[in-house]
């Protein structure tokens, strides 16, 4: 049965806060055929099912075991939920294959999920990867748009 947009948002908050802050992936909230369109770290597109979530969340939690998700703004309408978020954590495990910097890192992103019958069926995410790399000192300084 379809849920209301508010109910979808409540589930999205629960799913993402649990995943990022504890490492537990609530598989009952992801459709086995869920599509992950995000390309963080240059990963292959359109992976199916919960495996993609597990991989990305496992990768970041291995790098930053104290990582914390802070949802700053949200939109929920019809079957979609949008979250604008900030994550913070201490890089004790090494981000994206790099050696640990032991720095406190902060990065922002936006995630859109589509729900069907109380489960996530699609996810799009975009992350300030450049800002993250800059904090690690491995990317050029911020570009000047002029």
């Amino acid at each position, binding site marked *: 049965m379809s849920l209301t947009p508010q109910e979808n948002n409540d589930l999205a908050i629960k799913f993402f806060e649990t995943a990022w802050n504890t490492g537990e992936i609530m598989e009952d909230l992801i459709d086995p055929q869920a599509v992950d369109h995000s*390309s963080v*770290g*240059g990963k292959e597109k359109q992976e199916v099912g919960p495996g993609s979530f597990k991989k990305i969340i496992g990768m970041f939690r291995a790098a930053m075991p104290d990582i914390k998700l802070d949802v700053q*703004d949200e*939109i*929920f*309408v*019809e079957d*979609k939920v*949008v979250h*604008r978020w900030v994550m913070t954590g201490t890089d004790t495990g090494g981000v*994206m*294959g*790099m050696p640990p910097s032991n720095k406190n890192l902060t990065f*922002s*992103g*936006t*995630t*859109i999920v589509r729900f069907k019958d109380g489960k996530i069926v699609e996810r*799009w*995410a*975009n*992350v*300030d*990867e*450049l*800002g993250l*790399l800059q904090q690690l000192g*491995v*990317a*050029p300084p*911020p*570009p*000047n*748009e*002029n």
Partner: protein
Amino acid sequence: MSATAAAKREIIRQFFEDIWTDQDMDLADEVLDPEFSFVLPFVTLENREAFKQLVLHNHVAWQDLTYTLLDSVADDDEKGAAYWRSKGTHVNTWNGIEATGNQMSIEGITFFKFSNGKLSLALVQNDFTTLLHQLGVSELPKRR
């Protein structure tokens, strides 16, 4: 009074297809608040005129620059969001990077706020590191 969700989604479509792609500056004046802020993680443009300059500037740097709206949402209050794809060919200096002739294709998500039916804020997240890779910027770590 705030615009309907449908009206806001139409403005979001115009933002990408008519303003970003087709450089319709009259429409920009119509649908963007004068204090429209365009915010990337690394730079903020404080008003509509600065944003219009960015659009024109980027069309000089990128030939056939297009923004395709892939999906959008808007609520009945003051918020909207869009998932989009941008393409273009790097034909002039951009961000200090001399023309490479390379093609770029990146995706992004923009979170919008509206005020009195006009766009007042765009918070942009895009595949900026992908774009730098496509231009051959070598300082970045290799992708696995």
